[in-house]
């Protein structure tokens, strides 16, 4: 239960950092070898394998490593990143958290963590907003007594994105 609570705290703390735009602190939650992907989703017929398909390999909306995520954060700090300046008001709703059995790896103990995510986005003084729903399939790694995000795959529920850009993080 202690581990479960620690990982839940990680997800909630992360959501707080993202909602408050504390991106440098957010980078501190990431493993240096992090892989962060948002694959393109397409509408496909139900295949013989069943389930919900259409997660494309290869083409993504985001396919990031630590360096490129840091680049995106540094961009937001330039004062000229108009897509988020003024910043969007974002709210990350994290639910349905499922935590897998931790496994030892050469880099530390790793646990699969799945969560559902709803992002509310509001910009300027407009009353309209956009919503993005997704499942996050994460791997968190225990390093020096804390957990770091080592891998994230965001399974979007939209084939065509209902928002004008992805200038934020999932």
């Amino acid at each position, binding site marked *: 239960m202690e581990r479960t609570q620690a990982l839940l705290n990680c997800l909630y703390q992360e959501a707080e950092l993202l909602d408050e735009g504390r991106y440098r602190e957010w980078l501190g939650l990431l493993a240096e070898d992090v892989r962060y992907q948002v694959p393109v989703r397409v509408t496909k017929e139900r295949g013989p394998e069943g389930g919900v398909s259409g997660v494309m390999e290869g083409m993504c909306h985001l396919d990031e490593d630590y360096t*490129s995520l840091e680049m995106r954060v540094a961009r937001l700090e330039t004062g000229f990143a108009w897509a988020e300046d003024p910043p969007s008001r974002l709210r990350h709703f994290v639910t349905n958290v499922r935590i897998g059995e931790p496994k030892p790896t050469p880099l530390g103990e790793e646990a699969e963590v799945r969560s559902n995510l709803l992002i509310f986005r509001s910009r300027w003084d407009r009353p309209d907003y956009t919503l993005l729903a997704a499942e996050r399939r994460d791997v968190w790694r225990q390093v020096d007594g804390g957990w770091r995000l080592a891998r994230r795959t965001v399974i979007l529920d939209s084939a065509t994105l*209902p928002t004008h850009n992805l200038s934020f993080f999932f």
Partner: protein
Amino acid sequence: MARVKGGVSSRLSRMLEELQAGLEDGLVPAWIFNDPELFELEKEKIFSRSWVYLAHESEIPNPGDYVLRYVLDNPYILVRGEDGVVRALLDMCRHRGMRVCRAELGNASHFRCPFHGWTYRNDGRLIGVPAEREAFGPDFDKGQWGLVPIPRLESFDGMIFGNLDPEAPSLEEWLGDIRWYLELVTKRSPMGLEVLGPPQRWVVNTDWKLALETFLSDSYHTLMTHRSLIELGIAPKDAKYAMYGEQVHIPGKGHGSMVVGAPPGAKLPPFWGYPEEMLERARTSYPTREQFETARETRILLVTLFPNFSFHNPIRKPDHKYQGTVPMLTFRVWHPLGPGRIEIFSWALVEKDAPAWFKEKTRLSYLRFFGSSGTFEQDDTEIWSHVAHNAASTQGRHLRFNYRMGLNLAPDPNWPGPGVAYGLNFTDANMRNFHRRYLEMLLA
């Protein structure tokens, strides 16, 4: 003009006269970027009669491969038949109009309607009607009830275009001299291009012409819109970097290109930074020596086809720490959804025979700078949506935008390519040419 009088309200007629009166003086009324009545006219006069980009042939390489694409609100199945022929079939059952293809992409030998079960081969022929004899009698002719193909379908170097107008000029004639610039990417390798996956798709509350303008003519905006990348040291330090080069338009066609070179004294690699082996292939692959020489000096290339296709091929790098450069290529359809609303279809492409390491790096260059999350492009969509909002406002719609940049610039007589070229990209020449063609089609 008779059709105009018949189909256009006096309000819209007055507005088009205003556009016509101001254009040569570099004045374009804001209202053209978000007006419901004008949008209806654009649907009829522009998009129902123009060659619209649908797909790249590498998206459907094998028999039965299909992708679903749209011309206006018409869904078309782009499918390669067992005979290898690519067709565009209206995704609408001939019996009661249900969609027969319910996925964006896949492989199918036939399409079956889920309503009453009418079944079509992937060449569009109707091959199955449940209880055919009992329901429709012995004389029912299935040959009359196949899926309806798009009136015209033609391709250029793997780029597949459709046209709703059976009387439209050929694609070759439509493209005209812009082909020389298209070939700078389609013929860079004898193997041609391939897509790096399906398109990213997203919706922006803006006008298709505003999006298009950025890729057709607007080097000027890079100064400010993309300043964050200059600050980060990713875009060249000379904030006016996109000014150096040629802006070219094709009179009478509406198409345009920007061929940007290196700022004076800048140490940028030739040929966009493509690998040496690709440069060697290009030497013999390009149809003319002029195209090769032009390509060798190019760092950023944009081509926009009237009405709503663009490609962008800039020098780039996969991230700000990467030593060296990796160019990227994106194809665009600015798909009109309604007044002040578009859907962007954005593909990344690469030469089929590019080295594997390059394909992966160019994919990352694309993803991190352009497309739905691109650090360049996300600022464009932010700005386009506000401009479109203002263009529909009761006061703002009466403003006239300043398209006077480069109005007194003389054409460059030494440019080796076709079209009217200017030796400076800070000009609205391509945009004025676009609007001439736009107006001509609206009034035709």
